[in-house]
Each structure stands twice: as C-alpha cells, then as structure tokens.
C-alpha cells in the first residue's frame, strides 16, 4: 500500500507500484489538469511538484511518489491565485492551453528557487517544457511580470 498526499489530502494506492504518477493523477483521481505529452520526460506537459520540486510525473513511478507531497495545477492556486496564474491571464498566454499547466508548474518552481530570474534562468528552467502553439514569448513575459522583473 502506497501512501502519499495530493494537493494536501492523504491518498492510498494499492495498484501497480510501477504505474507513473501521471496516470494515477489522471485515471484514478481525475486530476486531468496534469497532461500527457510524451511519456518519456521530454516535453514537460506532465509537470507537478513533488515535495516542492518540479517533477515529470510521466516518468515518476508510484513507488517513488510514496510518502511524498504532490501538488498539481489544481492545487497550485487552491487557496489564492498564484501570481503566475494572474500574469498568464494578463498576457493571454494560452493558445490551445494544453501544455500550460506544466509550464505554470515549472515556472512556479523556478520562482520559488529564483524569485528574480534572468532571461538565461528562464531559458534554463523552461527548456524542458514544449509549447507546440509557440507561446514562448508570452510565457517569458508572464514569468517576468509575476516576478516583477523587467524584460
């Protein structure tokens, strides 16, 4: 029996411990804000926080998630809207919107580690997150607005 916390609430899982966290979140808990994009840690669509760290849930097994605190996009702004979520709206970042949960979770981890990121910091932190619609310049702008740094 695997025990973990998802968005603050305690969960128990007795399925295949090799199942990636992504499919547990999506298929079992119906937290569908976390997206599947590649299944191989290549695109960042499935990014969640595991004990506060940005993590690719598609390559994180339930065994490795045991005892951890998981935050998904649904939990990020549950108490009050995260500044990134406000900035995302201000910049109208989304096109199709599919990758944006992962982008926001990745950016949130960045701002926690580096509250005033440089352009290079943003490139480094965000290069694992693909947006096929091509919203990168607005993602950058939104991160800078949320961080209160100039472009």
């Amino acid at each position: 029996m695997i025990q973990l916390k998802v968005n603050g609430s305690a969960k128990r899982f007795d399925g295949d411990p090799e199942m990636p966290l992504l499919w547990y979140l999506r298929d079992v808990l119906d937290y569908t804000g976390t997206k599947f994009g590649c299944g191989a840690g290549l695109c960042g669509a499935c990014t969640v926080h595991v004990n506060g760290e940005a993590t690719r849930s598609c390559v994180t097994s339930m065994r490795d998630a045991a005892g951890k605190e998981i935050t998904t996009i649904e939990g990020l702004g549950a108490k009050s809207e995260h500044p990134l979520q406000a900035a995302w709206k201000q910049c109208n970042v989304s096109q199709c919107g599919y990758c944006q949960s992962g982008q926001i979770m990745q950016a949130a981890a960045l701002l926690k580690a580096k509250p005033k990121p440089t352009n290079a910091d943003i490139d480094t932190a965000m290069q694992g997150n693909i947006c096929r619609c091509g919203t990168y310049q607005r993602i950058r702008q939104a991160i800078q607005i949320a961080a209160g740094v100039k472009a």
Partner: protein
Amino acid sequence: MTHIEKVSRRGFLGSAIGAGALVLGVGVESAEAAAAAWSPSVYLGLEPNGTAVIVAHRSEMGTGIRSVLPMVVADELEADWQKVRVQQAVGDTKYGSQNTDGSCSIRDFYDAMREAGATARLMLEQAAAKKWNVPAGECKGQNHFVVHAKSGKKAAYGELVKIAATLPVPKKGDLRLKPESEFRYIGKELPTIDQADHTRGAGRFGIDARMPGMLYASIERPPVLGAKLRSFDDSAVKGVKGVVQTSTIPGFKPPHLFQALGGVAVLADSTWSAAQGRKKLKVEWDLGPNGAFDSAREKAEILAKIKQPGKVVRNEGDVDKVFAGASRIHEASYYVPLLSHAPMEPPAAVAEWRDGKVVTYAATQNPQAVQEAVAGAMGIKKEDVTCHVTLLGGGFGRKSKPDYVCEAAILSRQVGKPVKVVWSREDDIKFDFYHANAGMYMKAALDEKGRPTAWLHRSAFPSIGSTFDAAAEYAMELEMGMGWVDLPYAIANHRAENLPHKNHVRIGWMRAVAHIYHAFAIHSFVDELAAAANRDRVEYILDLLGPDRQVPIQPVGMKYWNNDQGQDKFPVDTARLRRVLEVAAEKSGWANKKPGKGRALGVAAHRSFLTYVAAVVEVEVDERGRLTIPRVDVAVDAGQIISPERARSQVEGAAVFGTSLAMMGEITAADGRIVQSNFNNYPVARIQEAPRVTHVHLVPSKAPAAGIGEPGVPPIAPAITSAIFAATGKRIRELPVRKTKLV
C-alpha cells in the same frame, strides 16, 4: 455518474443531456428554460433570465475561434459579453461546415454570425415596440437592453424573450447591421473565454473525456502502410494486471481515407495497464509493397525526377526560347522532408456503441467528418453518430482526420463498453498523416541587372490526393494553388510543371500545407538571385513584384484554387504584398542593420490563405555554429481583423511553428517503418530555440477578412535560410537546417 454530473456543471459534457438541446438555447441545468427559451438562429438562443447562449460550431485548437465568432454574434446582438454563455456544438450539417482548417472560420462565417446577432436584436427591438406600442424603428438594442429614447423606456433582453418568440423571423434584407463605429467587440482586444481555465488546468480536452464504465485501449498498429496482420499471440498479455481483453481492428480498404489503420488492441482499466499489456503482444505482419520504402532512396528519386519535364500547369510566354538565348542562367533544387504535426495532445477520443448508435467525445477539428468516418466504419447512418467536440490540445490539421475516433467506436462495439483511445507520442509520430516531402527545381534566365527574363519551376511530391484515391500521383489543384501556380512576379516567360509521385505513407495537410515547400523553394531561389545580382533583397523582391496590380491567375488544364474563392473578391494583389514587405522592412530596421559577426537579417514575402505576409528574421550564428533567433518582424495584411489580440498570437505562434520545421523537423522511413518516435528524435522548437521575440505588425486593410491561423508559417523558413546565408555564406537548399553545419 457522479463524475458526469460534476463536469456537467462546468459545461463540458453538458450537451450530452440532449443532442440539439443547445440549439434551442436551453441551459444545461435549466430544464424549464426549454419551453420558454427562444432561438431565432441555429447559432444562438436567449433564455428568459437574459443569458445569451451562443453556439461555437468551429473547433477550438488554440486560435481562439470559439470565443471570437461568438463575439461577432454578441456584438450584433448588442449583448453584454458577461451575459453570454458559449456552447460548443455537436457535429451537425445545419451549422454549415464545421471543418476547422484552411484558415477560413472568420472568412466563411463572419457575415453569418453578424446576421444571426442582428436578427435576434431586431426581433427584440420589435418585441419591445409591441410591448410599448411604439414604432419598432424607435427602439434600439443596447448592451442587453432595448431602449426607447423618446419615452425613456428600457427593458432587459430577458423580459422580451417571450414576445420575441412569437414574432416571425425577419428577412435578411430587413436587418440593420451595425456600423464599424458602434462595434463593441469586433476589432477590440478581448480575452478568450478559455484563458482562465487554462491557468487552473480546468480545460477539458479529448484526452480528459470519460464515459462511465469505459475501458482504455492501447493499439499495436501495422508498422507499414497497408501491412496485413498475419498472426498474433496475446498469451502473455492476459497476465498483466488491469488488462481485460485484447481485440483486433480490421485493416482498411483502399483508399485509406480516415479509416482506422487496423491492428491489435489491448483493453484495460487504465492507460498504463493497456500500454503494459501491449508490450507483451507478439504480432506478425505481412508488410506488403510499402515494406521496402526508404526515405533516402526516395529523396534521390525525387531530386532526379525534377530534372525532367513534367505536366505543364502554368505557361506564359516562351520559357524555352528565352533559356536557349540566355547568357546567364541560375538553377537550383530544393528539398523539404516529411513532417509530423505532433500536437501536444496526441489523437484522443472516447466512444460508446449502444443500440446501433455511437456517441463520442473527441478532440476533432471536424465533427462532421467524425460522423461520416465512424458511420462508414460501423455501417450505420451518420445521423446516428453524435460527436461532442472537446477542446483540442493543438490540431495543425492532424485532428481533422478522425481515424482515432473510428478506433474507439469499433472497439466499443467489440467489447460492449465505452472505449477511450489515446495515442502514445510514439503512435502519433509513427502513424501520422504526414506533411508531404517535396522536391522542387527552379531555373531562371537573367538579364544584365540579374532580373529573371524567364522562370521555370517544377515540383514532385506525394499528394494529399492519395488519401482519397490510392492511385493518385499528380498534385491536386489545391496543392498547386498554394503559392505555386499563383506566383505573382512580373516575369513575362513563366512555366510551372508537376511530376507524378507515389505515396508510401499517409499524406495529409499540416498547418500551411503545400505553401511550406513552395515558399521555401521560391523565396530561397529569389534570395539566391538577389545575392547573385549583388542587390538588396527587399529591393529585389519589390522589383520582381513589379507595378501595383491585380494579377489574374490562369493555370493550364486546371482551375486556380484560391481557397475556393473567386479572384474578383480575393484577387492576387501585388500592392498588398509590396505593402507588407515595406512594413516588415521598416519595422525591422532593414535598411540600417548590416550583417556582421554571424548576425544578419533574412526576408521573405508570401501570400497564402488570401492573406499577405512578409517576415524579416534576425539570426545569430555563434562560433560553434549554434543558431539563435533574437527577433522576428512579421507584417500581415489579412483584410479585416476581428480579434487583433488572437491574430497577433497566431502569427507569433506561426513563427515558432515555422522555426521548428525550418530548423529541426524531419520524418524518415527505413524498411518501410518510420524511424522517429518522440521529441528526442523528432525535435520541435523549445523556448531557447524559438524566436526570442516576434513583433507582429497588422497592416490596416479594407479588404474582406482572410486567413490568420496559417499564413504566418510559409515565409519563416526561407527568411531564416536567407538570414543564414547573409550571416555565414552558407546556402541551405534542404530542410531541416540542422543537417547542415553552419560553421
């Protein structure tokens, strides 16, 4: 069922309560509204509480269309946008075409949406006139109220619904469309309805759809187009935890159309279990004739083929005579590989077969094509297929081909439960309807100023036509009409030829379609000619465009496609192409930025989807040959712009999409099988590889609304390679750029 109820409140599965209910303007939660609600058009209804329900009949894949077309309705309705609920339509021909591709949603439905809104407003005004016993002409719809200025009377729209519902629907000629000066939403900067949801992970996509009791399928498909299932052994599959059963999907009958490819499916209680079970399958295939397909060999064939004469599709003057007498000739061949769409959400759908009918929730660009394809697969009428359209996590043309929905429906019938099909990324890359690989040969005779006196271009590529006719080898009018036979340069002697080529994989349309390879060849060649003449590239293109004029396009033996629009309403207008080129040059600082230290500008100007676009791209190539794109300037004349905010976002995105295909996109086959599988070997542009900033300059235009989703793509690749040449002296004639060492 609790799940269904939960998502219903968010409006996602709401229309499941009754197909067609939304057309009556019925609120999802409000059963009483059904009787009283009023809908003067299939595109909108009004509830007694005043809520305007506006139908989005086009698919939302990121363009903003399901917000923007309803804004047009709301504007003419004089609706308060806060009192509007947008309802996504199911597939139904009563809406007109729902095929959301070809950059035509605004062009084809702007007038219809205005008329729908204006009809409802007029009827509300007439209802108020009746209620107050005053002339209808004195009543005016204003921001969700009808007002009568003379008496100071005012009634909310909701109060007037009952009377309005008794009135005859006015004739089109009686409608009063608003003048531009009174527009509330058209041409204004409004956010789309989905922005907030996307910041909370609340948008529901095809991959998020659920039906009670559904199974998850993972499908092992034929590795080569047309391969037949010889045998399979699923004995090891059944031991996998969560696996329920296996099932076979029959192969398609040619032409493949949008049929399921066939294969062996593993059905399980989760996505993960299905995928684990699939790994244990042992499947033997008879590969058939495409089993020998090899991309390297095919490329050599195509590049040899285009040296030979082909079918003449445009012919003006006497190209042969000029070439025979010319003192200077320039020629070059270009090649663009197969490409995969790779939307971030792979193909995904859930379907249920019950009592001879199918209900599906699908990420689809074309719910009517879903109805047809699924009906064909199941042997039922298309009216017996209900297709609910979810949000699409990108489409780019892939999701107008509903093979994956057919798979879900076929499997549901076989297992007697709803089935969800989600393609893995490997499935998506390996079994796509690929953007065609193309070879193009260009030849020009040049005068003493380096200007062409004769121009010959030839093309060979597997045609999209092969999806509909297995024997098709020549290009379709649609493909050749995309920036090839309609080249508007002022060159007296001009010939275009096409050579036949057989497909070995499924070929389909991808964002900007044939414009991609046509624009790459034509504008790269122009860049070479300008360089050979040692002339400024912008000045050289302006010279090629010649005097401002509308160029009648008269191809040989075929109709000029022109996006199915007449050349009277949408002529090929060199003045508009000149204007966007001048704007892009001016805004980018073209005249003052001279190349240096691996840094330079490149340029291309191209008309596509009836829209005129010029791009100036700045590249920087460092000493290790690593390329970055600090800045792109794109000038766009798309005619009337309904949502400048979404128009800019589309063009920004197109610059990234164009960068991906220019720099890194390449699909190849060996022994009939696609070599690439995921984003490691089919890379797309990431944040540090995309243009750092794209400035979009919307050129004011009195022309009717044209396309915006695709036209930003074609000029990007040739503008990048133009810049690379200026920066490094390296001439790129084959995409992707990453195959060439830049230093």
